[in-house]
């Protein structure tokens, strides 16, 4: 399963209502996710990828695509090779 699909699956499993989630979905406006709901999604992502998301990154997670980008660029990117 690719990263986008995995993130969408995690969000669908951690929201109260059955929304159709896409990369363009806005957590608050489209999916009704409140602050506690955001914590729930972040916890699920941390558990799934065995990472710890820094609190300062959470406000930038407005859309599903934001979460995917953040994971790709910061948390799941391979370490840069030493030159």
């Amino acid at each position, binding site marked *: 399963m690719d990263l986008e699909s995995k993130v969408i699956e995690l969000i669908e499993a951690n929201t*109260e209502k059955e929304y159709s989630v896409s990369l363009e979905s806005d957590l608050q406006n489209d999916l009704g996710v409140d602050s506690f*709901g955001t914590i*729930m999604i972040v916890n699920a992502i941390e*558990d799934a990828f065995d990472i710890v998301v820094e609190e300062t990154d959470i406000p930038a997670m407005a859309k599903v695509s934001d979460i995917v980008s953040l994971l790709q660029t910061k948390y799941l990117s391979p370490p840069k090779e030493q030159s």
Partner: protein
Amino acid sequence: MKSSDLYKTLRTDLSLADRAGFNPYYRKMLRDMQGKLTVDGKVFFDLASNDYLGLATNPRVTTAMLEATAAFGASFCGTPIAAGYAQVIAELEDAAAAMVGLESAVVFPSCYQANTSLFPSIANSNDTIIVDHDAHASLVGGIKASGARIRPFLHNNVNHLEKQLAASQDQRRLFVVTESVFSTQGSIAPLDIMVNLCNRYGATPIIDDSHGIGVLGKNGRGILEYKDIHDFDGIYTASLGKALANAGGIVAGKKEFIEYVRYNCPGLMYSTALVPASAAGALAAIAAVNVGKIELGIAFSQQVDSAAKKTIFFGCCANIGLGASLARAANGGIRRYLGDTAGTFLSLLGVAMRYRAATVSVTIDGHVRTVKRISDIAVGKTRHIASGIKVYHELSKIDKRLYVVTVANLSLFNIVAALRRFYSGKPIPSGCTYLSLGYGSRIEISCSTPLEIECDGDSAGFCPCVISTAPDSLDLITEVP
């Protein structure tokens, strides 16, 4: 930052209320000893308070409060740990603990205060608190203040809860927090299953029973009785300001833990103690619940004006009081796409064309009545009015019988007239679409064609059908001999 600049950042935008010319918040109210509520000179039924048992105006409770004030003064003007621990507070703690079946209890000035100050006293950043997504603001505030890791779980979803428990096994202390009755939804936590999960995963359950105490359970002892939970080794909190009709809150549990709370919870130790009147009032309310002596539903029926003979109509969009088959059709997808008025109209039109008018025989406490051209029929208890059952003003204050309302002479004209008045908040005119049959404790309904019966908003099955009042829920509390 200057104060003037600070206050610019601390404003509430009330422009919407200004434009609407109406703000539903902080309405000034008057309330008399019959529970009648007056707002802006108009008398209202109070369906918004948490006075579930009508004890706030009960003479046993109010007299106890007056006598306590006369005996001990208005306040001890001290913290409970120093000079404010009135004897009556100690008595209330014993009575509250005995009522809910726990070893010991401690009284706080409010349950909000109990919840917000409890968590920082028992958890810190090394611990994890798993909490229902829809938990009350006081629980959320307390949990956040503790600094513990927060793991919300989907509302009342025990599978999601178990995932959080399984993922939290490396934590020092682990708590699971929920409420018994969620007041805005009316949902009840599956606490028995949650307690079992806590035992399996080494977590401590914390239950806020504010909306369950005095109401849930065969004897009104709350969620633990309702879920048949014995030897609860978790932490229990509850408000004294809802069914128990006063102010204050309790934290209850194991005796040793409650002693810890007494000496380690700043919200208790450094706050002026509950005033004697409130402690005595809550004590009297607990006595009333324990001995089962107050009529359920009194909060509603005490507000009845016997002089007024008008019919009032309560309704909501989800179920407009038309009976099971009509309500189900109206609640269908068609309303979702066309809106309330047009959707309901089309749904009802479909029902009117589909169903043939029936002849219904209704036996109310042995008295038989036959009504022709009935299209739908609904039954409700007088204290359960949210389903849209219409209730007469002159119901006596102890009336707890079932009330029957039928939909008769359903025609295109009547549907339009009824809907227009319903959605504009006006009473449905008698003789238009609705026909009441009266009330009784046992109602038998038979019909010339299969007709579904609604009782308090839920289907009670098809005719022939017998509906009786439920002794367990209605006779929980009765008058003092």
